[in-house]
């Protein structure tokens, strides 16, 4: 079977998962919710507002009609107007999502580097002190509450030693670049707004590092155990037998094979980082999607909550899809299923 059949198959699966996500939020918000109109309008909304909501969301019509309108509007990213921000939810998401994505992107790179190299190091030094140290570190990473990671970094690196700014996305006195791509860092590069670029990079490091701190453990652990498996495999012995140098044996032969389980983890790590970013953005006052979501939650801004979660769900499905494709690219023995 060719790689394309596999990719198309995965894409179809991803599409149906996205449909499922929308239907799931529909079930929650229209069917299971005790009083959908008040959920959407907010518990303290005026009766006139509630009436308007009933009309807008077709809440007085049969469920299948509601589902139809809900599906159409969700698939076109039309999530209504936020009652708190008084702005279309899709515009809000377009503003806040890129900020979180750039944070997670940097954090993923950090996580991958720390996780893979510490895992390979631990495997190379199995049952030695290096291995035990790495084990202690990944256990702590794994069990670390996101807020604790954020607070410890903030306390020491920002407040105590003053290396990096403790919160916000950039120095507020600097003029921010016009949103072109929506990613503040990229926009700053496009505008050649270097002071802002450097400032936002400096503000990005701590939250990204906090995210990496709570996520690298699982990558370390999987890299270590799969490295140990592959280092004992016959093909490694066979590579050593034909005189391949040690560095190439470990970092090309063994590591490449150990990457397969790690790649399947990437989507999981992405999903975990989105959860973590909700907390970490709150602590660092980093105004990304997590910040938007919590603010909406505290202010009974239901359309924003639903809009954000559908977009996040779609992002995770897409991350899974990318992981599947990467998996197929790296492993020539594609298996379908």
């Amino acid at each position: 079977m060719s790689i394309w059949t596999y990719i198309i198959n995965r894409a179809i699966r991803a599409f149906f998962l996205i449909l499922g996500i929308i239907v799931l939020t529909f079930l929650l918000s229209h069917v299971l919710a005790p009083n959908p109109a008040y959920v959407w309008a907010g518990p303290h909304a005026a009766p006139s507002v509630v009436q308007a909501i009933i009309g807008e969301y077709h809440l007085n019509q049969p469920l299948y009609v509601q589902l139809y309108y809900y599906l159409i509007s969700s698939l076109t990213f039309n999530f209504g107007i936020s009652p708190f921000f008084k702005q279309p939810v899709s515009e809000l998401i377009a503003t806040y999502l890129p900020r979180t994505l750039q944070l997670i992107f940097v954090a993923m790179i950090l996580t991958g580097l720390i996780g893979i190299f510490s895992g390979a190091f631990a495997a190379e030094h199995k049952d030695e002190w290096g291995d035990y140290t790495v084990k202690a570190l990944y256990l702590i990473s794994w069990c670390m509450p996101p807020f604790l990671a954020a607070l410890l970094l903030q306390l020491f690196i920002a407040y105590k030693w003053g290396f990096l700014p403790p919160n916000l996305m950039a120095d507020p006195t600097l003029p921010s670049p016009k949103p072109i791509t929506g990613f503040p860092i990229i926009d700053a590069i496009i505008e050649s707004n270097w002071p802002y670029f450097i400032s936002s990079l400096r503000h990005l490091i701590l939250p990204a590092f906090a995210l990496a701190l709570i996520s690298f453990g699982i990558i370390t652990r999987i890299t270590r155990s799969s490295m140990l498996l592959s280092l004992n495999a016959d093909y490694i012995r066979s590579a050593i037998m034909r005189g391949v140098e040690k560095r190439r044996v470990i970092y090309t032969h063994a590591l490449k094979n150990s990457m397969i389980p790690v790649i399947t983890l990437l989507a999981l790590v992405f999903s975990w980082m989105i959860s973590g970013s909700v907390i970490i953005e709150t602590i660092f006052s980093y105004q990304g999607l997590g910040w938007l979501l919590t603010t909406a939650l505290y202010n009974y801004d239901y359309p924003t909550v639903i809009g954000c979660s559908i977009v996040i769900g779609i992002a995770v499905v897409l991350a899974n899809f990318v992981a599947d494709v990467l998996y197929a690219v790296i492993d020539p023995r594609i298996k379908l299923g």
Partner: protein
Amino acid sequence: MGLTLDIEELYVTYRTPEGNIPAVRDVSFTLSEGEILGIVGESGSGKSTLALTLTGLLPQNVHVHAKRMNILGNDIDTSNLRKALDPLRGVGIFMVFQDPFASLNPLIRIRDQMAEAYVTKVRQKHGIKLGVDDVDDEELIEYLKRVNISDPHISIYKYPHQLSGGQIQRVMIAMALILEPRILIADEPTTALDVITQIQVLHELKRLVDEIKTSIIFITHDIALASVVSDRLAVMYGGYFMEVGDTLNVLKEPLHPYTVGLISSIPNKRKSEGYLSEIKGLYVPSETGGCPFAPRCSHAKDICIKEIPIMREINGRHIRCFLYG
């Protein structure tokens, strides 16, 4: 003819939490240039451990001791075998493994894995450092042609799982052709293959000896197969060499009771009796310190259970049995 291997009183012991398990005991042998030594034994006899010992790829928990271990003229330090053999792997010693599907990295194309062997040869023989990508594809294809791989131009760019077991073993032999190792260790290289492919692969192995004067250690559980390829046979049981001698002599006139049993269990059209004879029982690791074969031996005497006989030379043959002194 020079000796490529000279081993005297080799002991290999696995250290486990449950105690020490001896895998190879008091093994001495030599290997001459261009000679094929067949090592025959059933599973658990220590033959695979012996192979891995000679490559220095044993696990960490293994203790190796030898009175003398001389490989290609180098006296090897058995306390750090893995390291001591580092410079010899490649053009010195090469190994073909039992499971073809496990012996090549599934994620790397055949071409790159062959190129690695080429890089090693250039490095070890001429001291020139090459990258894997610097190797000429056509040259590698020539080697594949020499081992009769079908469509070498296509096969070389495939991944291991796209080839059959026999083809992979040919690729391994092609690597041996590239490296021209002085010693080749073949650990049951044909066990996973069907009968026809077996013979073809054996044929390629024998050609190695003719073309590059390699010495081969051919390890198998199948004495019939071993007798086809090898010049000398060593029969292994319970970690000991039981009988070592020229293949023809051993086949014609086996001396050790275990060898007798092995040979009479070869199916033979010319034999008239209707049943194949067999060796009774199963291999059990012995605790008593006697001959490991004693529990299954029909000639066993009291002394066999208490003591292990020493290796004796009889008519150019080496035998470890109390029947012969």
